[in-house]
């Protein structure tokens, strides 16, 4: 693992995501940007996967429960080599294999379909339980948003995961502190997420969500935790895309190619300043 290399990976995933959304003319930019550094770490070495063999039985698996951020996952998959990056331009086009929300029947490398918030963690628990019964060493990562944790099904799933000691499951929270209608704190506050997870029986790790090297290290620790774990990533909604780094509404934005190219230039400029 190389810190600069992961930062560069994250920058490339951001640029691919922004350009794909510009092809569609719109997208869930805020939450897609906040999760790019985690995706860079996951596909940059944390996950045991092989893009030439996406069905490899003992692979690690990812459930992007915040399914509306599919475009960021597609960018990471294309960057990793699951399919040509040119395909990203078909995002949401009629008949596309890359729909807004993740679809395992359409997209190479997507393990589980998501989109109705709160369902991914239960699915991930079934995958993790199944991996354990099959005797695979596989790890299962599940990314949820902090707003998504308002859905009660997550807490059903967490009770189950803790009870069955699914230590091959790692819950990742993209804690960008915002949801569609505004700040999570103002809409329905989560109180202390780490305390909640700990009292439910998970081992908790906290990490800056925009330092891919730190995320990499933390996820490696979580893999060896010997207990089901939650990694809470401190993130910012819209991070890294200059026109989305605003305090106002950035959940879903109209994006044209000029905006996209300016944002990509800014990403390159920031990377060269590192």
């Amino acid at each position, binding site marked *: 693992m190389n810190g600069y290399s992961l930062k560069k990976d994250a920058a490339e995933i951001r640029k691919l995501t922004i350009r794909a959304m510009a092809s569609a003319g719109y997208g869930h930019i805020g939450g897609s940007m906040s999760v790019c550094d985690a995706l860079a770490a996951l596909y940059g070495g944390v996950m045991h996967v092989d893009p030439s063999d996406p069905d490899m039985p003992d692979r690690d698996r990812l459930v992007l429960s915040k399914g509306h951020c599919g475009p960021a996952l597609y960018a990471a998959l294309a960057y990793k080599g699951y399919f040509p990056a040119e395909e990203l331009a078909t995002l949401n086009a009629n008949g596309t294999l890359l729909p807004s929300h993740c679809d395992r029947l359409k997209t190479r490398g997507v393990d589980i*379909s998501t989109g109705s918030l709160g369902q991914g963690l*239960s*699915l991930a*628990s*079934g995958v993790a339980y199944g991996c354990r019964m099959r005797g695979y060493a596989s790890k299962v990562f599940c990314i949820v948003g902090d707003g998504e944790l308002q859905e009660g099904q997550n807490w059903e799933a967490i*009770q189950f995961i803790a009870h069955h000691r699914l230590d091959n499951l790692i819950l990742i929270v993209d804690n960008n502190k915002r949801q569609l209608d505004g700040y999570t704190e103002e809409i329905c506050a989560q109180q202390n997420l780490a305390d909640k997870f700990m009292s439910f029986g998970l081992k908790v790790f906290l990490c800056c969500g925009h330092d891919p090297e730190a995320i990499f290290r933390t996820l490696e620790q979580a893999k060896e935790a010997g207990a089901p774990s939650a990694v809470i990533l401190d993130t910012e909604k819209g991070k890294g895309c200059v026109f989305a780094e605003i305090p106002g509404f950035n959940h879903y934005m109209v994006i044209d190619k000029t905006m996209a190219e300016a944002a990509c230039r800014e990403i390159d400029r920031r990377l060269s300043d590192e």
Partner: protein
Amino acid sequence: MSDYLAERFLLDTIEMRAAYCDALIAAAEENPDIIDVESDVQYSMGTRKFKERFPDRTINCGIMEAHAVGFCGGLSSMGYIPFYHAFGTFATRRAFDQVFLSLAYQNMNVKIVGGDAGVTATANGGTHMPFEDMGLMRLVPGMTVIEPADSVMYKTAIRDMANTYGNYYIRSCRRKTIKIYREDAKFQIGKANVLTQGTDVAIIACGIMVYQALLAREILAEKGVSARVIDMHTIKPLDKGCVIKAAEECGAVVTAENHNIIGGLGETVCAALSENHPVPSERVGVEDKFGQVGTQEYLMEIYGLTAKDIARKALLAVSRKNKV
């Protein structure tokens, strides 16, 4: 008289829940990927024996139907075949979006087994009495929906569901029913069973209403009306060919179901009729009401689910024949 029917209609010697458990154990002996998933109704639904035989293949999630269904989806993605067993109300109504998106939308292979169908929920009353479960499940694309009439068919259906990829909903009752079928009767999911021939009216029924339909046939015979009785155990996909043939040959149709007449067997049969061969038709079933506590006999009486009700509606359909 029939390739199917038992010589006499007697109360079965085994409970429906025992038939389920035996069939699931038999399927699991053959296929190591079959898993029993529960949400804290193992005692009520009678799958303790499965747990004793396969302790590592029984997973009791606790009281969390939404999670349990999602969990089944994840297991299915790993090649397992979960049978999720719960009261019909909660398996379908409470976990509807999970059934829709965590299972059907992503082409999983999960079998949902809903217990205490309709009025057979008796003393549990309105909160636990599913009159809407088949309707909900019919609305899920690709979902197969089944209601067996007795233990012989139940066991066959469980075996066939285990051997066929896809998402299924099967509803049943837990106690003993009247045994309709010979032990060696053969069934095919999606293919209706014509139990008796008849020329004046066809009674198309499912579940416990099949026996009521056979009784109604006798009432009608006394009045000189010849009724064909069809067990439409698969509500979706519907055996349209059988429905159309019955309409062509009998000229009138009555449906009978232990379910709301909205969304269930009656609606799907009437849609097939009106699109293909419209004839006078009547629906016997719960007429847009909630459940309540009571004995099964009492509830069948007040919701109009008896042989008498079927015979009355059959005569009505027959009387409408020449007025169309």
